[in-house]
């Protein structure tokens, strides 16, 4: 079963990390990704650039409108994702709990809608 793990962090908090703290954090991410590749959970994953680089696109009545910024201002911002293969929700939760940001931010786990 496929699940998307959406990683939410308070960008301000991450930005306030010292260089050594953020190097450690990145190292943890590297180790995590390596781990789930080995275990066969990894399907895909990316880090996203900060939320100020976001653009939101909507089309209403045929007119394309773009707004600067994310679709909604939130306390924690989407910072990245992993697409994983997991046996069931418990397995997916186990994987998600090891994502470094789960300790300081939030990870939303959503099952992929399989269309047959």
């Amino acid at each position, binding site marked *: *079963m496929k699940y998307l793990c959406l990683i939410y962090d308070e960008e301000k908090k991450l930005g306030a990390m010292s260089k050594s703290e953020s190097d450690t954090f990145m190292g943890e991410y590297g180790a995590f990704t390596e781990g789930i590749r080995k275990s066969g959970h990894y399907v895909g994953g990316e880090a996203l650039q900060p939320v100020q680089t976001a653009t939101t696109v909507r089309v209403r009545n045929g007119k394309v409108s773009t707004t600067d910024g994310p679709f909604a201002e939130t306390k924690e911002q989407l910072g990245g994702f992993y697409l994983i293969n997991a*046996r*069931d*929700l*418990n397995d997916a*939760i186990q994987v998600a709990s090891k994502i470094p940001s789960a300790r300081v931010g939030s990870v939303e786990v959503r*099952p992929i809608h399989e269309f*047959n």
Partner: protein
Amino acid sequence: MGEDAAERVRETVDAVYRSESRRVLATLIRLLGDFDLAEDALHDAFTAAVQRWPRDGVPTNPRAWLVSAGRFKAIDGMRRRARFDASLAQLAERLDASTNDAVGWADEGVDDDRLRLIFTCCHPALPPDARVALTLREVCGLTTEEIARAFLTAPPTVAQRIVRAKAKIRDAHIPYQVPSRADLPDRLDTVLHVVYLVFNEGYLASSGVSLTRSDLSTEAIRLGRLLIELLPEPEVVGLLALMLLHESRRAARTSPAGELVLLDDQDRALWNREQIAEGSALVERALTSRRFGPYALQAAIAALHAEAPNAAATDWAQIVGLYDVLARADPSPVVELNRAVAVAMRDGPLAGLALIDAILVRGDLGDYHLAHSARADLCRRLGRTAEARASYERALGLARQEPERRFLKRRLGELPD
């Protein structure tokens, strides 16, 4: 078979339903992998029993017969509907093959199936309201109407919660499993929390509510006993002890007129000594294990109250001691509040008042009516009438249960002008 014999068989089916239907359901859920499918299969199995047992006699192993019949009807039904939906044919074949091991799978691990059911209904990925509704429905067999009545909600609301919960279990693939050793402590916490929530709902809504199957406290205690049978962990033992000790005071908690009677004023002759004895024994069992937690500690406090022949003889010093341990195991403001009340009994109202004020000044429990009513009571005992009045009024503004509201109004009325 004559009419009398047929009638006896029908009564047997009823009796089997009462004692076995939950177990059969739990196994069918595992075999068929779906709650709704299993419920339909359960219904079909008992329908078949009503038709066949008068003719063929009651089987030696009714539960195995019912599981087998339910499974057969479900797979057969899928095959017939497969004419309109090809994917069902595949599912039917897969289910048939995977569950065709006829070697007593109906009886093997039936305890595991009941545990699986409880843990699945209480999965943390489900909303808390849904966990309660689903557990009462699937594990206890209450109807939607009974659950709605017990929680003072509308049946469609409860029905919707249950439908959504089952949909989430299906769509997010929440597995039908007993958690692994590593996950068990947290997951058991969730289950115990649901059981205690159900108990409290029944405990508080005691007066005037119809006490048929909507007696939630009895259901909660029954769930507690089931859990002890399946998973005799110290906190499970502790929770059952706590529930029994609280329940033992039910008859004394309300006056004949339906008014709330506080612990200090209760007629202890009305306390149920059997429940106290059982509860106290369970407390000892939990505490000797050394792996006890908050429930066992709360039960130990309840046991100390239960042992006191009258309010004045209560061992408040020991109670405060237990609260000290409880506060370390469960550092919540409510525990702090309850400890403050006990300190007031041991050291006088001023000591207790200082502790309660410290909590409120910090910004905790401002919306908790019991914090204000406790404060009011201590002010009253100190003769600080104006403060007592203010706190009682604050409590009244926050209290929701009618018996508690009437109690607070009475206290307000009793204050000197």
